[in-house]
């Protein structure tokens, strides 16, 4: 009698590229995520274009004041006679693409205020959440009590306190977003860490005598990545909202660069004379936030399906 060979047919292991494509195709599997991504990409592209070219200089009063949309000014002009479309495009920069450093030399770093604010929250939230979740006990008590106390302040009051304590500036807004975003992310990371630390591979790491920081950052954090990134995407949306709110209150990003919140605030003062002015920046804020939300929601759904 012949004996079947002991070999098992195995598919070849996938390359880095095909893995990346797998992740990307996850986005397109969800219609919601695709729509969200398209909206976000639209604004990103507009922002990048504005770095090199806008229809007119965004800060110069070249036209008649308070014009409705027409063939020269596609979205009309504001109360100082500046082209709204150009200002809208340039307004994307401070939110998503560049952060101005303090000082006279006008240096900027890539990545917008909203993005850096969320990255900051992601960093502090992850560190605090991992320590609270993995170490437990007093670590957990102290970290979470402090963060809870922070959450107890209304976000808008926190913004006001932080910005008045320091001075107006991009980095201060980044800091404000970081402070208000950290508790939420820490809470999420903590709950994920509490779950992941019960898995056997964490026991295996412990029985190898790994240090707590290795276990937290190398064993737990990579597996918490999915939900945390989805949450971070949502938070970029909230941060854009917050920047809009601050701009509206007049304590947002400093001039001269246009930002959407300040545009709404400026137009508000003339709302009974020229009501069109508030609409383009409001729609811009809303659409970018909705885009990010749709993207995050779709991703969450797909990730959940894959984990099943």
């Amino acid at each position, binding site marked *: *009698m012949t004996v*079947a060979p*002991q070999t098992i047919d195995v598919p070849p*292991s996938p390359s880095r590229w095909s893995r990346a494509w797998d992740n990307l195709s996850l986005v397109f599997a969800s219609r919601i995520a695709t729509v969200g991504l398209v909206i976000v990409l639209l604004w990103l592209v507009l922002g990048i274009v504005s770095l090199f070219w806008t229809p007119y200089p965004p800060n110069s009063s070249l036209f008649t004041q308070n014009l409705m949309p027409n063939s020269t000014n596609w979205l009309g002009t504001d109360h100082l006679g500046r082209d709204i479309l150009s200002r809208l495009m340039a307004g994307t920069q401070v939110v998503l693409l560049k952060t101005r450093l303090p000082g006279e030399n006008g240096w900027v770093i890539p990545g917008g205020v909203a993005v850096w604010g969320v990255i900051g929250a992601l960093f502090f939230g992850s560190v605090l959440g991992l320590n609270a979740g993995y170490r437990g006990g007093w670590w957990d008590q102290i970290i979470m009590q402090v963060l809870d106390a922070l959450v107890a302040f209304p976000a808008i009051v926190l913004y006001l306190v932080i910005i008045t304590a320091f001075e107006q500036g991009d980095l201060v807004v980044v800091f404000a977003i970081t402070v208000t975003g950290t508790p939420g992310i820490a809470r999420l990371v903590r709950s994920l860490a509490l779950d992941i630390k019960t898995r056997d*591979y964490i*026991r*295996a790491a412990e*029985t190898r*005598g790994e240090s707590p920081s290795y276990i937290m950052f190398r064993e737990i954090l990579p*597996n918490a990545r999915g939900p945390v990134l989805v949450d971070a995407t949502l938070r970029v949306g909230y941060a854009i909202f917050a920047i809009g709110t601050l701009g509206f209150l007049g304590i947002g990003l400093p001039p001269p660069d246009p930002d959407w919140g300040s545009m709404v605030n400026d137009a508000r003062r003339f709302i009974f004379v020229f009501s069109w002015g508030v609409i383009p920046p409001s729609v811009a804020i809303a659409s970018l936030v909705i885009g990010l939300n749709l993207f995050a929601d779709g991703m969450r759904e797909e990730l959940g399906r894959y984990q099943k």
Partner: protein
Amino acid sequence: MTQPSAPILKVENLAVAYKVRGGEIEAVQNVSFDIHRGDSHGIVGESGCGKSTVAWAIVNFLGANGYVKRGSIKFLGQDLVGKSPEELRRLRGDQIAMVFQDPMQALNPSMRLGDQMKEVLTVHRGISESEAEDRCVDMLQRVYMPDAANVMRRYPHQISGGQQQRVVIAMALLNNPALLIMDEPTTALDVTVEAAVLDLIAELRREFDTAIMYITHNLGVVARVCSQVGVMYAGEMVERASVERIFAQPQHPYTQGLIRCIPTLGEDKASSALYPIPGRVPPPNARPAGCIYAPRCDYAQQRCRDERPALRLLADGVQVRCHFTEEIDPGQWTPPEEVEEMVETVNGQADAATPASTNNGKPILELHDLRKYYPVTGGSLRDVLGLGEKRFVKAVEGATFSVPKGSTLGIVGESGCGKSTLIKTIIGLEDSTSGQARFMSFDITEGLSERNMALIKELQMVFQNPDSTMNPSYTVGQQIGRPMVRFGTVPRSQVRDEVIKLLQSMRLGANYYDRLPRQLSGGEKQRVGIARALASRPDLILCDEPVSALDVSVQAAILNLLLDVQREQNTTMLFIAHDLSVVRFFSDNVAVMYLGQIMEIGPADAIYRPPYHPYTEALLSAVPIPDPTVKQKQIRLEGSVPSAVDPPSGCRFHTRCPRRKLLPDDGAICTRETPPWQEAGDGHRIFCHLPLETLASFDPVVESLATH
């Protein structure tokens, strides 16, 4: 067997498909069987072969994306396929009942049991509240629920798992259904509880006029409760016969392979071998064109690869899906060479070192009176303020034993008996409360943070759950390589080669190096888990149920692999399992634990023969044996395991001990005094008041074991 003409359930050419992203998957194909009144039809197969899907198709629980693609399901003459959801719902409640695996999920935790049961009658039958109450109590008594009237007023969490399953079964029987579908009803239960539930099911079959469809992966359970058996493989039914025929003369090569790869109670590694089935079950979208079993079949010929066999009726009502079944003689079967080789060497080794318990002599691990208590915080104000009496869960109590180098100590016991805690204490995931523990020359009473790297390196662990044993974010190679880097056993530049060498010794190819865990099957993950434990070349490996989550054919391969490792590297192992047959097969010495206390310890063959502890006796009589002809004594424990916070005084087992009556005063001494350790020779110790002569006079639980 005389059977009435019309079957209760007749399934013909059933195919069930699930719609998934990018097409659909036929989970079940060409399944035909019928169940008659009073029959108990078993459906066995490994996980993912479509057993549950068949059951769900019958009750139309396929979910939003599943549907019956072809075939018919005739229930009492009516075709269920194509019926409206409303009609099916009425049928389900009235004529078809289903019992699921986990009773805790089948019962509503926020409703009293009585109300849940009565609802069945008041909703489907329109019976008045008070009459329903009476009938429910009556039914609970019929399933041997103690204190039935009282149980009606309780909530699900207030009764034990075995009792919950009794309630679920009683509930299923309330409407006197024509068909009772049971989907792994005892898989989540402990072996002693399982035995009692199986007794109940076997009795119901005789008493009620119900057709039972019994789904399970456990051949031992099938042998105990079924009259007919259908074996499923990769979505098809490959063999169908009476239970005696299946075990005595399995026809299909798959059934033969399945029976060869489970250890029967009483077999050990020196006298027998397990023969795993090579390869793995093909996923539903990659099934071969010919016979689905052909790629793994030892007898496959060209015709098997080209043409799919039909389910043929042989003489004596046996149905089999194989072209060449008449030509196959299981007696002529030759095991694959490598397994054969292994058996020879293991045999040789065992011969050289008899008795097994003294091989290599020197103990590597010594425990003396090791205890592990967990503090419990009470809910009262005194406890919160720290004024109340300190209470402890006594998870491990007075563990004393030594393990000789190169041998395996098996630890058995029901869930919650402290076997995992014992292992965690030894490896240092928990620090011990008191007692001494020495490993080689190291003191190991402290937790991991107090231990030095040289010690940590020598103790490694293999885990139970293949899905959580590997970190999903890292490749196989990274995970096996990490201990090598961490302990510096291999220079960094050679880690890759060393990992590949290790992978090959686990029978995984070098191409597994870059795989992520989600691309592996359960058995492969477990192999990687073993490789990772071996990477630091430890002297002691602690295995916490390494095979209990795996299918039997994979289980055999993993057990062989562990034996292989032990033979080559002379590794010492502690092996936890709840399956007594597996422990018997794998271990040189066995310890039986109950409620944190070791009740009996000694060489494996001595444990499974009188004299034994009354608890061991009860465990052995509960093991489902995959052979319907074996006679097994029925010893069933009453009640449930007491709480470890207040363990019973004296002997911890006295509340449930069926042998206590043999002592004067109905065993009053057992309630008062801690039993002595009685030496039964050859390192065999029993923790019991009963004199050794009495223990030795018990009849063996399983007949074949005595002669073995």
